[in-house]
């Protein structure tokens, strides 16, 4: 096999311990190039294998840097070699968004792991981006604390959750990534390391670049470390549920709960195709407080409501499986009942088994369809859903879909501010090498 000069150059870049990466300032989250675990002899850079594809596009190389400094050196080399790069954490959402137009190098974050700091008294933690989200409780729960982010796909990393802005039922009380991320370390397309925010929750110094990279699908830079605010674990939880026959009723009940004084942590509707729907209210707090509020929630939901201390099946998970079509539907709160019933009616019209599940209390629903669904029918349903969500102030985004459906539908739909977004992309990644084409408007 002929020598691969690009591979050699990437390997050489990974071996140089960069001295020009600035030491982190005290206010910035975490450390570049210090104290990273796992300095074993495994190769940092290798040629891509058959599974190293992004939405069906094959990469040539895979690099797994062990710290921010090494990631910076690799991205500088990739810039010099004009390589197109996609970032990959747990690989659980690489089928989200459009396929990249170009792909040479997968920059894998799974060696960038570990909790850098957990300051329990300050209710913050600093975590490397490749750390699995579902491993954090092991560190945080001992202090009675949590990072209040749900994990819709098991195995996902912190960086992946930030990059795709995933959230779950508890966003109703705790918010989403944008509300919990207080500091970030990035490596830019040109290999420059930058920090924004810090390690204190209250901080308005400088632009909030953490929000800019949240949900940017890795098109603006590599996230290597994140600082988060934490919350205390609740002493008691209760899931109060009721099954309902039609989705309009589910929407109406959700509105009733919202208007009451329950302060729920989550208010969910789960409506599998062809089965009864269920409304669930999650209450958290002191034992006495939760008992009283759960009783009030049962009264509001109706006589056959039940409560449990464990979540119902499918809680916080997306209502689709690998290879299926997955959608995200949003609405102003008053439009949730209409969205629920119109979505079901549209699916029936197109003869598609649409599973709906999501946060009726905040106006975010997820919808799943079997991957084998006829692309024409899916496209018709997406149009109908876009008309409905548009009428209630929201959006329909196709998060993931098999290739035949992808080819047939516009994944993102209309986007406000697209021209400004293109300008931001152009400043951060002027040569369009970071996952080009993955994001809105072909960004």
């Amino acid at each position, binding site marked *: 096999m002929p020598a691969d000069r690009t591979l050699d150059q990437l390997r050489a870049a990974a071996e140089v311990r960069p001295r020009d990466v*600035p030491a982190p*300032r*005290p*206010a*910035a989250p975490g450390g570049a190039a210090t104290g990273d675990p796992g300095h074993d002899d495994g190769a940092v850079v290798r040629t891509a294998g058959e599974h190293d594809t992004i939405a069906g596009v094959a990469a040539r190389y895979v690099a797994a840097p062990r710290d921010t400094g090494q990631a910076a050196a690799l991205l500088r080399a990739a810039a010099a070699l004009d390589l197109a790069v996609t970032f990959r954490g747990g690989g659980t959402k690489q089928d989200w968004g459009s396929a990249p137009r170009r792909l040479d190098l997968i920059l894998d974050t799974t060696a960038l792991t570990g909790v850098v700091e957990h*300051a329990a*008294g300050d*209710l913050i933690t600093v975590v490397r981006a490749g750390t699995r989200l579902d491993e954090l409780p092991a560190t945080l729960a001992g202090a009675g604390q949590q990072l209040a982010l749900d994990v819709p796909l098991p195995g996902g990393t912190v960086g992946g959750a930030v990059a795709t802005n995933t959230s779950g039922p508890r966003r109703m009380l705790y918010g*989403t990534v944008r509300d919990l991320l207080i500091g970030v370390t990035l490596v*830019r397309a*040109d290999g*420059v390391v*930058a*920090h*924004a925010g810090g*390690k*204190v*929750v*209250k901080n*308005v*110094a*400088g*632009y*909030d670049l953490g929000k*800019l990279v949240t949900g*940017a699908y890795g098109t603006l830079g590599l996230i290597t470390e994140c600082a988060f605010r934490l*919350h*205390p*674990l609740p002493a008691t939880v209760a899931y109060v549920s009721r099954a309902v026959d039609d989705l309009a009723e589910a929407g109406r009940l959700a*509105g009733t709960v919202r*208007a009451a*004084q329950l*302060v729920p942590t989550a208010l969910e509707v789960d409506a599998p195709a062809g089965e009864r729907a269920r409304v669930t209210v999650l209450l958290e*707090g002191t034992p006495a*407080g939760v*008992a*009283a*509020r759960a009783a009030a929630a049962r009264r509001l939901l109706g006589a056959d409501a039940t409560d449990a201390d464990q979540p119902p099946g499918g809680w916080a998970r997306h209502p689709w499986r690998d290879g299926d079509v997955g959608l995200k539907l*949003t609405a*102003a*709160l*008053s439009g949730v009942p209409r969205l629920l019933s119109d979505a079901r009616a549209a699916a029936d019209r197109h003869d598609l088994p649409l599973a709906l599940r999501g946060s009726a209390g*905040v*106006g*975010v629903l997820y919808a799943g369809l079997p991957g084998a669904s006829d692309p024409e029918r899916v496209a018709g349903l997406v149009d109908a859903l876009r008309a409905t*969500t548009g009428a209630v*102030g929201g*959006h329909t985004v196709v998060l993931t879909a098999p290739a035949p459906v992808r080819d047939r539908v516009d994944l*993102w739909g209309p986007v*406000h*501010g*697209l021209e*400004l*977004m293109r300008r*931001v992309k*152009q*400043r951060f990644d*002027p*040569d369009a090498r970071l996952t080009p084409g993955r994001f*809105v408007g072909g960004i």
Partner: protein
Amino acid sequence: MSRTTTDLEALAAALRAAIGADRVISDRQQLRTYECDGLAQYKVIPALVALPADAEQCAAVVRACVAAGTPFVARGSGTGLSGGALPRADGVLVVASQMRDILEIAPDDERAVVQPGVINLAVTRAATPYGYYYAPDPSSQQICSIGGNVAENSGGAHCLKYGFTTNHVLGVELVTPDGDRVRLGGRAPDAPGYDLLGAFVGSEGTLGIATEVTVRLTRLPESVRTLLAAFETTDQAGAATSAIIAAGVVPAAVEMMDALAIEAAEAAVHCGYPPGAGAVLIVELDGPEPEVAAQFAQVESLCRENRAFEIRIAADDAERALFWKGRKSAFAAVGRISPDYIVQDGVIPRTALSEVLRRIGELSAERGIRVANVFHAGDGNLHPLVLFDAAVDGETVRAEEVSGAILDLCITHGGSITGEHGVGMDKAKYMPRMFTDDDLDTMQLLRCAFDPDGLANPGKVFPTPRLCGEVPGRHKGVHPAQEAGLAEVF
């Protein structure tokens, strides 16, 4: 940097043609009214003031500025404490005071849509009849504007539990520094694309001017309970705060004042705090009645365990208001005990409170400058009030040194140079102490995407803005702004 009178007259004429003669101020005496914001030690008389009536007029003003290559500065109520709305002598001050309509209160959506000049408290007043309120509550909430809150990402006493402006703004319509009107976000969450809304909130007028703001309305809590605890020392009050947080309680607010701040508040508003207190703590819990009842008893006993010598519990709204009166009037109150003072705003990890207060005490003693301390103790946001007399030789300089040294303390403890007042004009020079050149350069990439010509509030936030160029990166050419003779604008 001086512009010729002819240039200015031409711009004034263009503005009058665009938005009406009565909405453009060029008279020197009238312009003087706008020479400063809430940070009155900086004064600059703007070249012109424009008072647009709506978003389209605001866009027309910005387009006229762009055509003339003239910088512009947006201003709401002018209550900001970092000089963010300090005018430019060569620029146009765009004042939002004529855009004061609450466009919609939508309790079913838990949203309100307002123009930028609407006063913060007015949103809560309009929403209260429906059982809702607007949560961010800066101390100036009776006079500060929502547009200014958006620019500064304002906080307030209750952001410990409820978050800041950025957590409560769901959408804006803005005029970009090019003069385009763009909508970001909206009534539903999670709009697709980059979170430019998140980047815009808190950008201190450097990325454009908000002309319409959609905010979240929060359900009025079923129950609110407030206690005031007096301690002999700030260390004891700090320990009580730590104990409350460690117990897993998230109060709506935890506020602390030290002896000097209490003395000032007593002199100003006779709030009747317990005599002899070295520190008072105000702790407020809100939420569903059964939760508040359970946690309030816990907070009370934690205060006692940490040696509170007196605890008062607000029996009604009037008494609660009295507790808060001393705290909310603290900044102005120090005027009763000192001819001049600097309001500082810094953040430390809460657990460093005791050490940082000790250092502030030492700094104060070393420099002979008194410091009264008021803070949002729950989240480590300090507001040291540095007292001095400008009439005494050298005191101003020493006060500024103490004030700056306090910011350095915040930085070395891993905190921030501003928690809620913003960087503005006042703290731009401190940014390089908190961020590397690369950090600041990266923030400038965002600035350049929005404002390549650097016309939106130049000179604020960043000490040395970069020249944007056409596109950064490998293909740099001669800078067009330099070519066009505009480089001096930066």
